[in-house]
């Protein structure tokens, strides 16, 4: 009797299994590279721009989100976008493999979503805010009353400054903020406040 390993059947079986395994591995790597290659790869600037909140507000010191994305790709700091706040900085730090510093306050604070409202009574129809609005969210003709389309406005306060009569102000976006469950406040187990006090 001789150990099973020396029998011819086992060796043929073992080598076929090994061969099939290696061929399968090679096929997988090429398929992976193939799928990876025809996946539409955005340029680095587009990837950064996709992460920015697109409010075009200019708080980051650049005229819009695309210029800021271009500046980031050339090494600008990634924590200058107040509307984006924590999430944008975290996403950028993951994409660019940089440290995840907090938002630097000199560019403004991260606030709840805002929306601009025109006090129609005082509007003199000078169409200055219409030209200033980056996303055409203000309706109105010359010498006619203007109003802000609430669903389109992104609260970027570019229209506040050019208005000669200061009749536009920013209010928190209305609409029902549904209460949600927060993450259990203690990740460390020692505080015992289980559940969320309403």
């Amino acid at each position, binding site marked *: 009797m001789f150990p099973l390993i020396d029998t011819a059947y086992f060796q043929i079986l073992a080598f076929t299994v090994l061969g099939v395994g290696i061929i399968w591995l090679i096929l997988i790597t090429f398929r992976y590279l*193939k799928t990876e*290659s025809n*996946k539409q790869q955005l340029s680095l600037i587009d990837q950064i721009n996709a992460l920015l909140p697109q409010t075009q507000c200019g708080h980051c010191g650049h005229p819009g989100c695309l210029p800021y994305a271009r500046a980031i790709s050339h090494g600008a700091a990634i924590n200058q976008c107040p509307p984006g706040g924590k999430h944008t900085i975290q996403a950028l730090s993951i994409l660019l493999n940089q440290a995840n510093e907090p938002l630097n306050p000199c560019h403004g604070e991260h606030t709840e979503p805002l929306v601009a409202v025109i006090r129609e009574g005082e509007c003199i129809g000078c169409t200055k805010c219409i030209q200033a609005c980056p996303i055409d969210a203000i309706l109105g003709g010359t010498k006619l009353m203007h109003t802000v389309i609430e669903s389109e406005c992104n609260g970027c306060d570019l229209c506040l400054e050019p208005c000669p009569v200061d009749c536009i102000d920013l209010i928190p976006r209305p609409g029902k903020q549904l209460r949600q469950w927060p993450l259990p406040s203690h990740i460390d187990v020692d505080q015992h406040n289980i559940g969320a006090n309403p």
Partner: protein
Amino acid sequence: MTDFLSILIAAAVVNNVVLVQFLGVSAFYAGSNGLKNAIEIALLSATVLIVASLTNLLLTKTILAPLNLMFLQLICFVAVSGSLTVLIFQWLRQKFPDSLHRLHLHIILVGGNSAVIGISILNTRNGLSFTENIANSIGAAVGFALVMIGFAALRQRLDTADVPQSFRGPAIHLISAGIVAMCFLGLAGLV
């Protein structure tokens, strides 16, 4: 045939390039921060490792040894592996144009991988026949890729762990690599 396999397994598992011989640890650590690009870098450095060590082997056997220029060995190896890395990257860039643009970062990792030169030098020193050296370098490449991908998955899991502040980041990663190296050391003498 079986001794080819046993050398390959010995090079891959028993005296693993990264965890037992501690070659290419920098590429191993830098490349394994995300599973996706760990797999990419592992594949690339495996191909570079195999191709470079084989060409170096040919180089020594045909040119350096007969003309006893062995002292030039290190310089030639560095030159060969550097140029090979660039060549392979160019070839890959043509074949998969838009997928690998991100890999200009990886070129340093793969090119500067000390395992490439380490394996080539060991190949000349250990007096194995030509085919056995091929098995040795293929095994080393497979071992490097396997351990790197495994370590990348391990690192992903360590990032969700509540590690004490002073151990966060590279400290805990290197401790884990140490424990795995201790375990691979236990496999000594397997073949």
